[in-house]
């Protein structure tokens, strides 16, 4: 066992740290029109330094960084309090699906514009009657000349208020639930699309409803085989729950801020919660290192999903308890943390997965 970084990774770390120190500045909320564009510009700046998608092949804008280097990048990124990634849904949910199930044509067409944020992607998973129970989607895609016509309603689409395109599952065949679904990409500005932003608890439209009324999608925007959408989507869901969406750097940085906050506002009765936040972040970091060395099985992503989402709530709740009701610098992160145990599959669903698929308890 060896936790040291090789020379190449250390050099990369130094480059990233220096670049971020020179370029990071605070931006407005990405859930406002102006802030969204500021974040798009920030993604372009990252791309110009080949830092927007470090682990991708060079031809799509990456630098083929190892997973370890990607982790190091994320640690530096969060430690520098760099802006949230407006391209996150595309980079961390859609792109892995395209690498696994897309065509060369799709990768060539979609990935470079994603890396430069010329196209920002929203996810369109949930529907009013399909939240935790994703397999009960009702929106349909009907065959037409040269493609498909989408009909139905999606909801809780992150970033959809201002994004360019979206990806989701549509019912194309006769089967029930997991069968007969197809993974499709569509344009949020195409004729027949109506986007209604939904204000979150903080008042900003972090997600939206999408109404689809005979929206045309060409055949080239089917990912994987038609009818095979559930399997295609599940590879993405694994990514969302697991390592990619919530890199340990996010929590080690937040825990470090909490320790700093505690030193300024020491309350011995809250000491253990502060220390446990730091320990939890460190545990998640080392757990991720172990996963790099020995990739875990699919359902193991449910373990980390429950862990990081509850850790995030604990970190922010502790900060609020230290600060009282005026919690400058922590309120937005706190509100966001409360959504963690809900999105990407509620923690109740994840615990079912852990019990049934890892521990082998009866369904």
């Amino acid at each position, binding site marked *: 066992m060896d936790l040291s970084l090789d020379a190449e990774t250390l050099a990369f770390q130094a480059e990233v740290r220096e670049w971020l120190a020179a370029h990071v500045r605070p931006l407005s909320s990405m859930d406002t029109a102006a802030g969204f564009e500021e974040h798009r510009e920030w993604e372009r700046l990252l791309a110009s330094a080949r830092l927007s998608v470090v682990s991708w092949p060079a031809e799509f804008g990456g630098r083929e960084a190892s997973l370890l280097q990607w982790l190091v990048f994320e640690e530096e990124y969060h430690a520098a309090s760099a802006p949230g990634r407006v391209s996150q849904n595309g980079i961390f949910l859609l792109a892995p699906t395209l690498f696994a199930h897309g065509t060369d044509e799709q990768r060539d067409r979609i990935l470079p514009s994603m890396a430069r944020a010329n196209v920002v992607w929203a996810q369109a998973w949930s529907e009013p009657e399909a*939240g935790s129970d994703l397999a009960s989607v009702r929106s349909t895609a009907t065959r037409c000349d040269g493609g498909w016509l989408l009909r139905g309603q999606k909801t809780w689409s992150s970033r959809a208020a201002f994004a360019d395109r979206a990806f989701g599952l549509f019912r194309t065949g006769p089967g029930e639930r997991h069968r007969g679904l197809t993974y499709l990409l569509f344009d949020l500005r195409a004729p027949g699309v109506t986007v209604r932003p939904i204000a979150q608890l903080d008042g900003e439209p972090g997600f939206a409803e999408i109404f689809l009324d005979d929206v045309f999608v060409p055949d080239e925007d089917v990912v994987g085989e038609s009818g095979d959408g559930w399997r295609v989507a599940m590879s993405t869901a694994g990514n969302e729950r697991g390592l990619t969406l919530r890199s340990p750097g996010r929590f080690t940085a937040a825990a470090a801020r909490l320790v700093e906050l505690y030193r300024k506002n020491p309350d011995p009765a809250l000491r253990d919660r502060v220390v446990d936040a730091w320990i939890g972040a460190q545990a998640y970091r080392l757990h991720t290192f172990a996963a790099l060395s020995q990739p875990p099985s699919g359902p193991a992503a449910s373990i980390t999903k429950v862990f990081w989402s509850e850790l995030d709530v604990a970190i922010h709740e502790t900060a609020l308890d230290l600060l009282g009701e005026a919690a400058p610098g922590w309120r937005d992160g706190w509100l966001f943390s409360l959504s963690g145990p809900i999105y990407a599959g509620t923690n109740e669903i994840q615990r079912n997965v852990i019990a049934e698929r890892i521990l082998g308890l009866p369904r």
Partner: protein
Amino acid sequence: MMFTLSPEQTDLAAVLHEFLAAGRTDLTALGVDEVTDPVDLVVLFEELGHHAVPGPLAESLAVLPVLGAGPGSVAFPPHVPHAVEADRYYLVEDDTLREAAPVASIESVDPARRLVKLAAGPVVATGVPAARAFDLGVLTCSAQLLGLGRAMLELTTAHARSRTQFGRPIGGFQAVKHHLANVLIGLELARPLVFGAAVTLSSRDVSAAKVAASDAAWQAARTALQVHGAIGYTAEHGLGRFLLQTRALRTAWGSPSMHRSRVLEAL
């Protein structure tokens, strides 16, 4: 020993509930500014919490009247460093009541509340019953939290009965059942502490009530959000108002940690 509400108190709760459920806000029309008995105040504030009524309520209706002032808002440094936004401000230091002027506005975790930093103004009175006033602030805040918790439990139970996933109401899943059972247990055991504190008005009992009501109400809020899922996270759904007010009141009128200190000191 008769540890239950009188028929008059039960009636008061019912009248308030009907009034607030009808969306009315002109509380003085109900004569609530004449309520001074601590148990009656708890009945009143539980209903105010039950409907998530905003504003400097503890300040206007419980604290300032005891100090012979108000309506308005009041800060009690160090445990209440800032006042909730109002038309008129006061400041209590030791046993002295002063007028105060707003000098800066401070965000609360609840966007429906704003805090105000105050500068001390002219003395209004000395030798005021500051300790009793503070304890009444803590007590009524606890009662509000109890009402908020109850409201969120009701909202969530109704949602769990009607929302269907995987072909059945989510309230049929044991995980959801146990979450909600825990919320009910927390609230049911916090409630007698709040009423008990109204009877004794000792600082020990008032602080114990605040600790238990804060924890129970916040547990209700977390569970409510988790069971509602994304819909509860939207500004247009009713839950957010309750959840955010609960988080603000949890640390208002003294943090849970400070109140636990007070309990221990008194034992």
